């Protein structure tokens, strides 16, 4: 009989120091896990700080809106009891005058006006004028006096809007980026036509991105095939042609397109010289010289050029892994070149196509500088409007809401894409 027992009497395996083996093992594993965690921690912290936090702030900003509540505290308080059926009572107007006097002193009246103007077009100047004039109102009754300053204060809808926007939270920004708004009674209605542009812009952004993705695929796929199947030497020379533009700054390439496309520029001269201009004039497609610069055409061409390597490279690297034997086998079984390609080769490249197209499409959604430089006012994409909301309108709520809309649209598309193609099938190489 062996002296050492494999299993001790109590049935628990122990390590050398007497701790149960299970515990020791768990402890060792935990140490390993912590070490691994330590390695990913910097990246994790970076992603949280630079990605998750800003997105949360954006979501928050798109619905948080304390301007009215903060600057008109007494009016908001007094409006609590108002039923909204007829003009607010004298107390509300008294509170309103007190708030405006205070706001005028702190020079915050324009801020109130700016916020209310988002909902009632044209009220900004009325608020500032009223704030200037209420200083002269020493005592009541205020109601008639205020309405005498501007009849907008005699409108029930104005007060309904103030009451509605007195909450710290508002669906206003998100709704207006969908060309919707809340009516005075709180129901959702369409924006007037001269202010509803955002649905068009979203559709335009998706449309341009889709078109550019399709163009890069049509242009890139054959090139990728050639690169993957040519002899090494030719392939590396061709590869330089793909990579050289890829390594050039986006701004430089966009500027180059500006020069090529401008009126009377290289492109126009080529069209004139080759007789295409003449032909197009004959057919009545255009009148006079072709206009390329600041058009949708120029935007799509420039973006396609910039995005081409992003679609091409994943396809290429997937094609590299496909053995030529498959095609030979297909042919030996009697498949015509076209049929073999369609049934044997192409399905194998789909994971690369999926990856390249998704990459290009998502990058396109965020394009800002290229449409701004080579596109006209009606070719601007959603990022351009986010930039303008921040830089020239100082409207962070609107910028955040546009960001939320873009993010939501992207996530929905990603979900659909995942259902159709399957993200796990995607291959970058």
């Amino acid at each position: 009989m062996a002296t050492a027992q494999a299993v001790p009497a109590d049935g628990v395996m122990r390590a050398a120091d007497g701790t149960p083996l299970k515990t020791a093992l768990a402890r060792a594993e935990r140490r390993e896990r912590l070490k691994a965690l330590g390695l990913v921690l910097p990246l994790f912290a970076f992603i949280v700080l630079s990605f998750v936090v800003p997105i949360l702030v954006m979501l928050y900003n798109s619905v948080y809106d304390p301007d009215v509540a903060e600057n008109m505290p007494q009016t908001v308080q007094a409006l609590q009891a108002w039923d909204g059926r007829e003009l607010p009572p004298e107390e509300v107007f008294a509170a309103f005058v007190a708030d405006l006097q205070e706001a005028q002193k702190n020079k915050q009246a324009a801020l109130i006006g700016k916020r209310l103007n988002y909902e009632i077009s044209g009220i900004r100047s009325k608020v500032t004028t009223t704030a200037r004039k209420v200083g002269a109102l020493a005592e009541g009754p205020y109601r008639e006096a205020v309405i005498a300053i501007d009849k907008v204060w005699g409108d029930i809808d104005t007060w309904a809007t103030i009451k509605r926007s007195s909450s710290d939270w508002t669906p206003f920004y998100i709704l207006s980026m969908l060309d919707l708004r809340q009516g005075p009674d709180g129901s959702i209605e369409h924006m007037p036509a001269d202010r509803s542009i955002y649905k068009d812009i979203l559709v335009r952004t998706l449309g341009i991105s889709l078109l550019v993705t399709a163009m890069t695929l049509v242009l890139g796929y054959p090139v990728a095939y050639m690169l993957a199947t040519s002899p090494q030497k030719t392939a590396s020379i061709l590869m330089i042609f793909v990579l050289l533009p890829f390594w050039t700054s986006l701004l430089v390439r966009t500027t180059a397109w500006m020069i090529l496309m401008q009126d009377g520029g290289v492109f126009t001269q080529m069209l004139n010289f080759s007789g295409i201009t003449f032909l197009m004039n004959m057919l009545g497609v255009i009148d006079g010289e072709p206009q390329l610069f600041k058009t949708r055409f120029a935007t799509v061409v420039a973006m396609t050029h910039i995005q081409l390597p992003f679609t091409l490279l994943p396809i290429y690297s997937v094609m590299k892994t496909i053995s030529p034997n498959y095609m030979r086998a297909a042919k030996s079984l009697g498949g015509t070149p076209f049929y073999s390609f369609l049934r044997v080769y192409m399905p194998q490249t789909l994971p690369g196509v999926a990856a390249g197209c998704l990459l290009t499409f998502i990058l396109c959604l965020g394009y800002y500088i290229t449409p701004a430089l080579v596109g006209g006012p009606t070719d601007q994409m959603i990022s351009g409007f986010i930039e303008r909301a921040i830089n020239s309108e100082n409207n962070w709520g609107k910028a955040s809401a546009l960001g939320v809309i873009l993010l939501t649209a992207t996530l929905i598309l990603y979900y659909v894409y995942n259902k159709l193609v399957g993200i796990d099938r995607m291959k970058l190489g």
Partner: protein
Amino acid sequence: MKKFATLFGAALLAGTALYAVKAQAADELTITSWGGAYQESQRNAFFKPFIDAGNKITEAEYNGEIAKIRAMVEAKAVTWDVVDVDTQTALAGCAEGTFETIDWAKLGLDRAKFIGGDVTDCAVPNILYSTVAAYDTTKTEAPASLFEALFDTTKYPGKRALQKSPFVNLEWALMADGVAPADVYKVLGTDEGVDRAFKKLDTIKKDVVWWESGAQGPQLLADGQVVFATSWNGRFYNAIKTDNKPFKIIWDFQAPDWDWWAIPKGTPKIEEAYRFITFASDPQRMADQTKWISYGPANKDAAPKIDPAILPDLPSAPDNLKTVFYPDPQFWGDKGDELRERFNAWLAQ
């Protein structure tokens, strides 16, 4: 481990260097203006002498976006100490507390000596400029009027370069549509009037190239991209005199306005800002500025010191004032935001 220490050391060093740059920037006065030929003239007349007098200046440029100044003031992170603004910005910014109220006694200047000195309490007038149109005499026939130049696309086919802003464009559109100059703001004050102005602009929408910085107007004209361009008169003057461009300014319905020095509220360098404004308001220096650009100095004492050769090129020359249209800055100070919003929506449609 050693590598890590080296890296850490390098990062620390880089951080310190950045911090040092920031600290150095702290005693420099940041002056923001409109770039191009105008800022060049200010550089020659004011910035360089101010630097020679032992001060430090950092220059910045913008295209008149009040929102940029507002954002700084609201965030309490003011990095522009003196800003060159137009009148509507001065008025709007004054009403909402974006700019410091000017203490003229502290400036040591006589407010009555400044043309338009009493228009706003928050800025010091600096020049008188005008928004005008121009064309290339070698390529385009002289138009009979400004409105023919801008709106008659049958007689003058081709593109027009207009400022990407509703300011002056809406007024011109209304006048071209038959509104009497005296009634322009009465009409523009109503929703129907605004619709009418945009409707008129619709007729040339596809023929317009929109510019944002002042240098673009003359540039588009020089490149032959447009038949007519609008800009500020000094920019065309500069292209004609300095770059010898065969341009001619259409003074018909020129729209004069002031530029002002304003101090964004909350700047830590308010003392230096005041010192600079006093320095730049000196009559001789203001007269000197006309050597480089054709804008009229706002200080009345500067007028006698101006070189007479430039007088015919100033917006205030009698020949140029025949059909002048004075924009209403108060209207724009009040309604600017709304109209800009509408304009941007209109552009994107």
